[in-house]
């Protein structure tokens, strides 16, 4: 680790003195709350919502701190600080989550205010990463670099981040509230399975606005969101959000924890009635103080202006040569490297899923390593994807071999992005107080079984998502193969589902295949599903396409013959 890092301008939102003041005042408020809790002035019941809205959970073994990474964007400096914090206040590693956050699993209550103060030094916080409030806003992890992007969604995420932070009216909602924004027609932010999903698109007149999708979600009752508004002018976004949240805050159910999300309200009163209520509220406030002045939007948009990328060659002999000489590099190019809006550049995904490792985990050394690579080859910028990988958004084609080797040294160059071992898994019973079953060991077993890269690439795109309980943090409902841990009389069993998806326009909830299986049979079951696919696939058909064409029966027969 070099001890000095040269100054590098960043190309995303930078805090000013207003932001810094608010975050540091929040740290001091929490410091006082922790002091009162330790002194016994606050009961645990009273303290709970206070610590939760500062990102602090009480887990099985210790407190867990969930740090917000707004729209999944980090500078190298911030990532180094996260490494530092994980070393100083935790056990030297962290877990990147499906909501683009970072979780530290071994925090001490008395250290939490200092850890938050350390975060504030690099303009970060853990506000509203938990609790019944508006959570950290997520975005397409390719934002600002994607070839298919209409507009950088992070501009709008930042506007929503500010509006929602310490919102006085919406800090005690019926339940948590998650917002995701995409600026591309190819949704990479799963906007149809969020409380509110926003999709930027250009209408026939060439105006850009939002499709507003409300009431999607996973969890106990998976639902695909309903479009309340086809086209919302951008400067009216906050008024529309405030109207939607107000309707939810007033009328959302509070009698049953499991029926308290906005999706249940939308389901019970119907999308039509929900639209009427929201539009009426919106009509009353749309010309008020929430209307966004053009200067405000421009000032934030300027901060997301793309980095000035120098011209770099689009075709590089060394890369072409290495592709022929090294099969692993060739596979890596296919799976972990995506097109960039500029010729001569690519978006690189660092796989946090090396064979047999817990999905999404990174040690402090690995975090610092990725920060160094980002400084050298990606404009000092890193993204966290909801698929629990890290992204280097601006890598020159010429630098791909060097980046591949450097990631390889960190163990993050596995050529498996989008493949069967690029598994999403929640922390599960190894850490989580809610879980019914372990997730990570199941992921590790599948990962080891399918480790061989050529085979993974032959199997092709296949998303496995694992949740340790019905709360669905591992998004099992939208996995091509979903695996849900359940507890039956003290035995951990795994329910299998097929056919889930989050690709835009094709968002689908998976269907349960049949009886749950024991942990030691999960690999055999997945193996049988894969074999069914390989025997039946047509030309260019992905696993999920074959499933859609031939239906569940052939999969079911083979799986239950195998287990």
């Amino acid at each position: 680790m070099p001890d000095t890092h040269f100054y590098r301008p960043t190309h995303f939102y930078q805090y000013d003195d207003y932001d810094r003041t608010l975050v540091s005042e929040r740290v001091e408020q929490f410091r006082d709350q922790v002091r009162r809790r330790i002194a016994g002035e606050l009961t645990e019941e009273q303290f709970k919502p206070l610590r939760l809205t500062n990102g602090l959970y009480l887990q099985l073994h210790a407190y867990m701190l969930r740090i917000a990474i707004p729209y999944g964007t980090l500078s190298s400096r911030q990532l180094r600080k996260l490494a530092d914090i994980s070393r100083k206040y935790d056990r030297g590693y962290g877990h990147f989550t499906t909501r683009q956050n970072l979780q530290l699993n071994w925090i001490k209550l008395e250290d939490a205010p200092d850890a938050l103060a350390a975060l504030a030094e690099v303009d970060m916080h853990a506000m509203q990463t938990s609790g019944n409030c508006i959570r950290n806003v997520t975005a397409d992890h390719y934002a600002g670099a994607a070839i298919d992007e209409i507009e950088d969604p992070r501009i709008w995420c930042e506007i929503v981040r500010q509006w929602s932070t310490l919102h006085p009216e919406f800090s005690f909602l019926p339940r948590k509230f998650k917002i995701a924004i995409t600026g591309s027609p190819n949704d990479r932010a799963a906007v149809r399975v969020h409380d509110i999903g926003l999709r930027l698109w250009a209408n026939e007149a060439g105006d850009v606005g939002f499709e507003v999708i409300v009431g999607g979600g996973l969890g106990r009752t998976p639902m695909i969101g309903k479009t309340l508004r086809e086209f919302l002018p951008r400067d009216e976004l906050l008024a529309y959000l405030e109207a939607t949240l107000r309707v939810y805050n007033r009328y959302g159910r509070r009698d049953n924890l499991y029926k308290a999300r906005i999706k249940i309200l939308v389901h019970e009163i119907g999308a039509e009635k929900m639209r009427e209520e929201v539009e009426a509220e919106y009509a009353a406030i749309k010309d008020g103080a929430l209307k966004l002045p053009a200067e405000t939007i421009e000032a934030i948009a300027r901060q997301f202006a793309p980095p000035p990328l120098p011209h770099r060659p689009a075709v590089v002999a060394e890369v072409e040569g290495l592709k022929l000489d090294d099969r692993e590099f060739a596979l890596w190019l296919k799976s972990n490297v995506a097109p960039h809006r500029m010729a001569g550049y690519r978006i690189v995904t660092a796989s946090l899923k090396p064979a047999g490792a817990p999905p999404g985990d990174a040690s402090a050394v690995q975090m610092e390593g990725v920060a160094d690579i980002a400084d050298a080859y990606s404009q000092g910028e890193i993204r966290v994807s909801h698929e629990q990988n890290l992204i280097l958004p601006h890598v020159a084609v010429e630098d791909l071999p060097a980046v591949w080797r450097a990631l390889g040294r960190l163990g993050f160059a596995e050529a498996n992005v989008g493949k069967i071992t690029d598994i999403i898994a929640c922390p599960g019973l190894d850490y989580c107080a809610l879980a019914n079953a372990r997730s990570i060991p199941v992921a590790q077993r599948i990962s080891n079984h399918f480790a061989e890269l050529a085979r993974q690439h032959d199997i092709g795109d296949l998303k496995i998502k694992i949740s340790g309980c019905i709360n669905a943090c591992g998004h099992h409902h939208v996995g091509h193969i979903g695996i849900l841990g359940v507890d039956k009389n003290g035995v951990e069993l795994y329910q299998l589902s097929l056919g889930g998806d989050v690709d835009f326009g094709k968002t689908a909830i998976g269907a349960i295949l049949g009886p749950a299986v024991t942990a030691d049979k999960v690999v055999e079951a997945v193996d049988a599903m894969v074999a069914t696919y390989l025997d039946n696939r047509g030309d260019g058909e992905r696993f999920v396409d074959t499933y859609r064409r031939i239906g569940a029966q052939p999969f079911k027969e083979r799986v239950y013959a195998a287990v």
Partner: protein
Amino acid sequence: MPLFSETGSATILEPLPFAEWQQRPAWPAVSLANTDPVEDLAPHVGRLRLIVLSFPKFSDGRAYSQARLLRGRLGYAGELRATGGVLQDQLPFMLRCGFDSFESDQKGFGEALAKARTLFSVVYQPAEDDRAPASLLRLSRHKVLSPRA
């Protein structure tokens, strides 16, 4: 239950529950459940001197929306009191939504109320306390600094 007010001048009027008050709408003090429709008070807000809103539990936040509607939309200017699960850590939110008196038996509540408006010197969104959100302050600062403004 001890009563706190920023101005120290909370009214001693006895509020009527909403259903009773509807029979006697000339009475200037009413107490609402957090499911009662605040919109129904619209014709009367000019006359009312006390509206009490209820937090059955501190985690039930419906009355925050009722408060904002009363202040912002209906233009209610009298005393707006929070009762029920009212804890000092909610004060920054309650004050911003327009509450100005509080029933709470929490120890230290009065001291906390005296400091509550100074806990955060920056706010990010418009509410009912006339504080300018950071986005607006940035705009005016920009205009001051910009030579052509």
